């Protein structure tokens, strides 16, 4: 039987506010445990939450970016459950009146087609702390630094049909939130975490199958593996005559497998109700429009602009805008170089290759955009040739200095002195008399090959420094 997967994602995005959503404590990652938790975060008696307006602004930015309706009146609710890293015994979240209502975004499928994924809602909530089970000799340590960090939970409709689609959707979300600057998007630090709802059904069937939820998956690769594994597990179960249990599962990256966490029958009754400590957030159209007018350029807009402004192909522009950091890098460099195609080729080619080899993000590149721009400018103005440019990049990567410095130091400057090149060409012609004879006798097609050979000989004779265009021109002149 042919099976179809049905996938919906709940993505928790950590918002890049300086302070927490309901307190003034800092949100910086990686501080000593419990040094960034104030009396509010610790849920000391009598402490009260005060809304961080910045988090609302960020949620509205996201809503506008996905074309969603913004709720002019959103309400915070208490989600009640006991857990040691949840100090109040409830999480402040939004149940019935989220700040962002239905929106949508487009993803690109492998076959190049576009698919629109509907987003049900996006709501604001606070993060919990962390329970640390190691190093405490049979006890559990609690770190409340993360407690109260603002999260935007983005819930998709169950419209994704494969693990690859899910990853494409997640990557698109990632690019939107990082373009908006509302999250650092650093998945390794938990800035984006994903709950995956997965079910399977025979292709063509309308009803959904029984779904499972895989909790807290925190990388694109793990999302793909966890979902793919879960789809296969469910199909195996059904084909083996068994049933899929509705349950929550955890993905274990070490085993590349999911295992059950808790069964829904025993799930908490969260006893949601409106938090009486917080007033509803009332926002008016003027507030929304002010945010809309300041929205940064989003990936799709940037792609269109890269095509029209720089004359790049859809493909090149698409690769460049896949991350805001890469697009920004390209733009800074190309403004120096003044040749978009050349810059794009180097950003996507030589630079990307080195970054990949070293598992670096472009934002961590040892060669900054200005540096690459200055290097490519020397390539463009014929100071150096392509071969030399690669050597210079290598040297820059190793921290040997700026492009001009390295070109100077290593003597890589092209020889563009006509007299010097003429002397070399004459020498080459004298040393290759046979080829010169052949050239004179040959037709147009053959002549091209021979001239390339002679150009190569001349450049070799110049120790790689002669400007190839100049050599070719002089050769052609002398042979005619």
């Amino acid at each position, binding site marked *: 039987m042919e099976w179809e997967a049905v996938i919906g994602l709940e993505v928790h995005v950590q918002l890049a506010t300086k302070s927490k959503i309901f307190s003034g404590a800092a949100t910086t990652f990686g501080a000593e445990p419990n040094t960034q938790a104030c*009396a509010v975060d*610790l*849920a*000391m*008696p*009598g*402490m*009260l*939450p*005060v*809304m961080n307006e910045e988090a609302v602004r960020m949620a509205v930015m996201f809503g506008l970016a996905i074309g969603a309706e913004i709720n002019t009146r959103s309400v915070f609710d*208490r989600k*009640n459950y*006991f857990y*040691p890293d949840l*100090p*109040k*015994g*409830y999480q402040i979240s939004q149940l019935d009146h989220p700040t962002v209502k239905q929106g949508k975004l487009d993803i690109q499928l492998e076959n190049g087609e576009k698919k629109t994924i509907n987003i049900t809602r996006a709501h604001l909530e606070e993060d919990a702390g962390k329970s640390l089970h190691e190093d405490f000799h049979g006890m*559990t340590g*609690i770190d409340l630094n993360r407690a109260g960090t603002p999260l935007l939970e983005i819930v998709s409709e169950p419209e994704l049909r494969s693990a690859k689609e899910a990853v494409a959707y997640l990557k698109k979300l990632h690019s939107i939130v990082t373009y908006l600057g509302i999250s650092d998007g650093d998945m390794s630090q938990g800035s984006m975490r994903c709950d995956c709802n997965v079910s399977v059904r025979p292709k063509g069937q309308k009803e959904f199958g029984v779904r499972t939820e895989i909790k807290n998956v925190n990388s694109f690769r793990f999302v793909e593996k966890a979902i793919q594994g879960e789809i296969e597990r469910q199909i195996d179960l059904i084909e083996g005559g068994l049933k899929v249990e509705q349950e929550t599962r955890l993905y274990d990256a070490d085993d590349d497998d999911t295992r059950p966490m808790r069964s829904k029958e025993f799930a908490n*009754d969260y*006893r*949601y*109700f409106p938090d*009486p*400590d*917080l*007033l509803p957030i009332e926002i008016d159209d003027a507030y929304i429009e002010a945010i809309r007018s300041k929205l940064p350029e989003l990936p799709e807009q940037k792609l269109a602009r890269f095509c029209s402004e720089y004359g790049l192909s859809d493909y090149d522009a698409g690769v460049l805008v896949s991350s805001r950091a890469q697009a920004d890098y390209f733009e800074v460099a190309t403004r120096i170089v003044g040749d978009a195609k050349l810059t794009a080729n180097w950003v996507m080619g030589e630079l990307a290759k080195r970054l990949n080899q070293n598992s670096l993000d472009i934002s961590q590149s040892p060669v900054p955009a200005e540096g690459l721009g200055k290097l490519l400018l020397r390539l463009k103005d014929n100071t150096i040739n392509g071969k030399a440019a690669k050597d210079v990049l290598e040297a820059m990567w190793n921290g040997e200095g700026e492009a001009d410095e390295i070109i100077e130091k290593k003597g890589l400057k092209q020889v563009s002195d006509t007299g010097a090149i003429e002397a070399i060409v004459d020498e080459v012609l004298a040393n290759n008399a046979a080829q010169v004879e052949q050239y004179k006798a040959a037709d147009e097609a053959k002549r091209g090959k021979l001239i390339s050979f002679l150009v190569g000989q001349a450049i070799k004779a110049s120790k790689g420094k002669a400007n190839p265009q100049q050599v070719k021109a002089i050769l052609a002149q002398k042979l005619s």
Partner: protein
Amino acid sequence: MLPHTISEIISGLRDKQFSSREITQDYLTRIKRLNPELNCFITITEDLALSQAEQADARRNAGEASILNGVPLAHKDVFCTEGVTTTCGSRMLEKFVPPYESTVTRKFMEAGAVTLGKTNMDEFAMGSSNENSYFGPVRNPWDTERAPGGSSGGSAAAVAAGLCAAATGTDTGGSIRQPAAFCGLTGLKPTYGRVSRLGMVAFASSLDQGGPFARTAEDAALLMNVMAGHDPMDSTSAQNPTEDYTSALAQPLTGFTIGLPKEYFSSQLNAELEKALQEAIKVYESLGASFKEVSLPHTELSVPAYYVIAPAECSTNLSRFDGVRYGHRCENPKDLEDLYQRSRSEGFGDEVKRRILIGTYALSAGYYDAYYRQAQKIRRLIKNDFVSTLNEVDALLCPTTPDVAFKLGEKTSDPVQMYLEDIFTIPASLAGLPALGLPCGFKGGLPVGMQLIGNYFTEARLLNLGHQYQLNTDWHKRSPALGE
């Protein structure tokens, strides 16, 4: 003989009849003598009080005395006080010393007042008799066999017994007004949001409101001038400016129309109390006010609605007391579940547990619509009743309690009887309206209280009504004998 009112203390300090240290010492001496029997204080902050008094005297000598400089006060043990144990009447917080100050107590400290101690209360402010305190019941100074009312019973009894001239309290469903009535005091529950809740241990967040206990409306106005005001750290705190609550006290009452809600003058009201209220009406008429019967038709629904909403909120407000970070933790928990269960079972008393259970039930899936949502609808109806009535009249006059102070132990076996004690105070709480309680007579040697309910943020007008009444009556001047 200690002064009767804050106003007298203020003028005595100003005229150098006594220093703050002297009067503070006098109060501490009286507290030590009478507190063992009355049990008004959970913590007596003797050292703190004396050092604050000395600082106040130094400020006065330096010519830097603000109005309450050096005035000794007591604070309900629901207000967190930095470095001073704050128990909230519970074993759960028996040893809890907050590292921060509540906004209310901070304001009094900044105004130069002296803290005599932290007063007894029903555990987590849940109760109408002060019998739910882990630290034992408070005795009513008018008759030590009787309850002082609750939950702010310690503050009320302390002021009535002259252990302090004024005190702070909190009112969720009547916890200032009912003890004020039982102890013959003037007590104000301000408009919800008028006084900051920051640092006040929460019972029911949408209802809790701090306010003053005093002998007179004038004293209550002096305290309100310090307590009231916007607090950016409390999102539900009202933003509109406060007024000088003493400035309107002298205003004549000519042309005032006062409503008499007929539902409050029902069979639930004891006949002798009704008579006292009729006398009060006559006093007001003689001062130029006129009366009008009005109706608040949803009054009888207020107790059931309140006893869904308040427990619902308390059930989650008290979740933070889990034995993990502070407060009572059971000995040698064997796992997390055991830690939660035993810490909370041991730390909370019966009434708190009862309300947590009621509230948890009311918020549970499948019951939410029938209880919590329904109660919120009733709350809106009750509020609408008041809003339309208060468009017609300047204030409402009604009883505070169905009867005078009951005997200790009399109602403890029947929680519903105890809950019905709040029938006249709960409606204004649900509506978030300000209400002033003040003494208007005696029945069998026990004080009778009446209640004035006003429109939102009309505290100054209510205090004006109270002050004018007290200029023409002397119920508020009487004190219990206490073997003196």
